[in-house]
């Protein structure tokens, strides 16, 4: 079976004033469809950088990133934005939601940008909101929701769009143990039920333990062993 995502010898160098920061130094990794993978590593090891590259938010200095047959590492500007809109779901560490839109409107946002009619949007989003226990909060604005509730709305937004993959950068970092556990449960269940491919970065060893596959980064390179490949 050919991989959903192929990261091929990717380098990313940031230029900071006079010095070059080598955030990624030759990373090669494949992800299969339906995988539930954690991206682990110490702070500064390049996790966010790699997620940005796979999420078509940034371009590698060297190497390629492919999603199915699309060479996303070569996309720029409007093409990249459209690719993200059509194929990738995001859940960020914080500040996930558009402040002036309600929970439901936020959850429907991607669908609305894609031009899905209102009834279809609602029919798609409401069951998911119910699934994450937010049905009665669907008309609240983000500032009227707790951090965990906001993260769940973001998960619903990502999943409602039925993307090829969902990328999450430390989705549980701002949540307490119990809430982060619950969010992880939710993502695992949705991964099983809907077969959505998940890739998320984390520091949390409890979270890492529950993942089927863990990719470990150290100083911008893969640290062996990568359990999933074993």
């Amino acid at each position, binding site marked *: 079976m050919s991989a959903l995502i192929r990261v091929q010898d990717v380098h990313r160098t940031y230029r900071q004033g006079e010095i070059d920061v080598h955030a990624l130094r030759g990373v090669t990794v494949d992800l299969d469809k339906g995988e539930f993978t954690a991206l682990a590593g110490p702070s500064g090891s390049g996790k*966010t950088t790699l997620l*940005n590259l796979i*999420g078509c*938010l*940034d371009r590698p200095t060297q190497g390629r990133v492919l999603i199915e047959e699309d060479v996303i590492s070569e996309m720029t*500007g*409007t093409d990249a*934005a*459209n*690719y*993200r*809109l*059509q194929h990738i779901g*995001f859940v*960020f*560490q*914080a*500040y*996930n*939601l*558009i*402040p*002036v*839109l309600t929970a439901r*409107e936020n959850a429907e*946002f*991607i669908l*609305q*940008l*894609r*031009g*899905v009619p209102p009834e279809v949007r609602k029919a798609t989003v409401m069951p998911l909101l119910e699934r994450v226990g937010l049905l009665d909060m669907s008309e609240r604005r983000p500032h009227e929701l707790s951090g965990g509730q906001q993260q769940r709305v973001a998960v619903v937004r990502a999943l409602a769009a039925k993307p090829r993959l969902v990328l999450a*950068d430390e989705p549980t970092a701002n949540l307490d143990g119990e809430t982060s556990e619950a969010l992880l449960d939710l993502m695992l269940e949705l991964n099983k039920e809907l077969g959505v491919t998940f890739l998320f970065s984390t520091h949390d060893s409890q979270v890492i333990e529950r993942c089927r596959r863990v990719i470990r980064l150290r100083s911008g390179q893969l640290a062996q062993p990568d359990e999933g490949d074993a």
Partner: protein
Amino acid sequence: MFKSTVLVMFLMAWRNLWRNRVRTLILISAIGGSYGLSLFSMGMGDDMHGSLADKAGEIAGGHVLVHAKGFHADRESSQIIDAPPALLQLLRATPGVVEVAPRVLIAGLLTTSESSAPIMLQGVDTDREKALFDPTSKLTQGVMPKTGDGGQLGHPIVLGKGVMAELSVKLGDRVVLTSNRADGEVGRALFLVTGVIATGSRDLDRAIAYTNLAGARSALGLKGSQVHELGIVADMTLASETIKTAVLATLNAWDSGPGAQKGGKTVAGKTVTREVLTWQQAMPEIVGFIEIDDAFNYVFLIVLFIIVAFAIANSFLMVVMERVREFGLLSALGVTGPRIAGLLILETAVLTLVSLTAGFLLGFTAHLALQHWGLDVAELYGVEMGVGGIDMGDMVLRSELRPVKWLTATVGAGTLVMLSALYPAWKATRMAPSEAMRFYE
């Protein structure tokens, strides 16, 4: 897809506008207030200039004037034109011409046995003067001289209140006019005071005097239909230049036509060269004043709006900075740069629409109020006010709405506000989505 995006963008724009109520209200007051003020000041300026033009036409003696060449500058009694009734009739039938008033103008000294006063005596046909300025309405005693009045006892004369006081004469008294006759000799003529006029301007009342055409002609020794001036009252919706052209055409047609046999082409055997002036040419100081006043108003309004535009640009720049995360999020979710810029421009457009509506209501209300009640200039300034020899003390300031000007101001204000949002909007599109994400850390 596009429609759906626009819908949600519009929703966001609208809600974003009310996110910071105080700032939005300040912006609306600034834009709406300056726009409303500019409408109001334009309305007031246009009305003032309109009244000034009316007054100038009155003072000049017509919207278009016909003289012998040089009379306007020299005012010599001998600078005469001939205006037979048939020619006057033809001029009155010229398109755009409302009335033609023939006048004999005399600068002279009026004396009694005790004292004397310099006056500007106008020999007029009272009925023809009404279309421009009706002296009858300003009479405090007596009547205006009629055609055919006069004889052995002296020609009738109406004097300004100030002249009456200066000479200490009363109705029914006789006065003697000393002036240069058309033949160059100094002449004397007897007049009978038949009326008193008070124009409201003290300076004018110290010099003004009216008689009929026959009285003035006999004082100067003019013959038949000779006059110094034809004051042409025009349809004010037409430009005076247009009327002037039509009048010139009529005069030329007369000179080369059969009617010229009845006079009008020559005076004392010599062909007269006529001079046709618009009131603007006759009173260039007024035109200059209006132009300078207009220019000053424009500069003031433009400066005002540029200041407002900078304030808005600054405020929008702050909005962009505050919302870097939001724009980063939108970009990451797949909203393209141009659409993010579009969101900001949409927000500005909504703001502009709300502000201009408020400003228009403000300006229009002020316009209606001023139009209804008016503003008494004399009361306002408490002193006599004048421009280029025109007394405006009796003027009541109102407001005049010129749709084209208001539309221009509206489009201009709207465009300027929209332009001020361009740079901030462009800034927002320059955000790399991955960079914006870093703000979380």
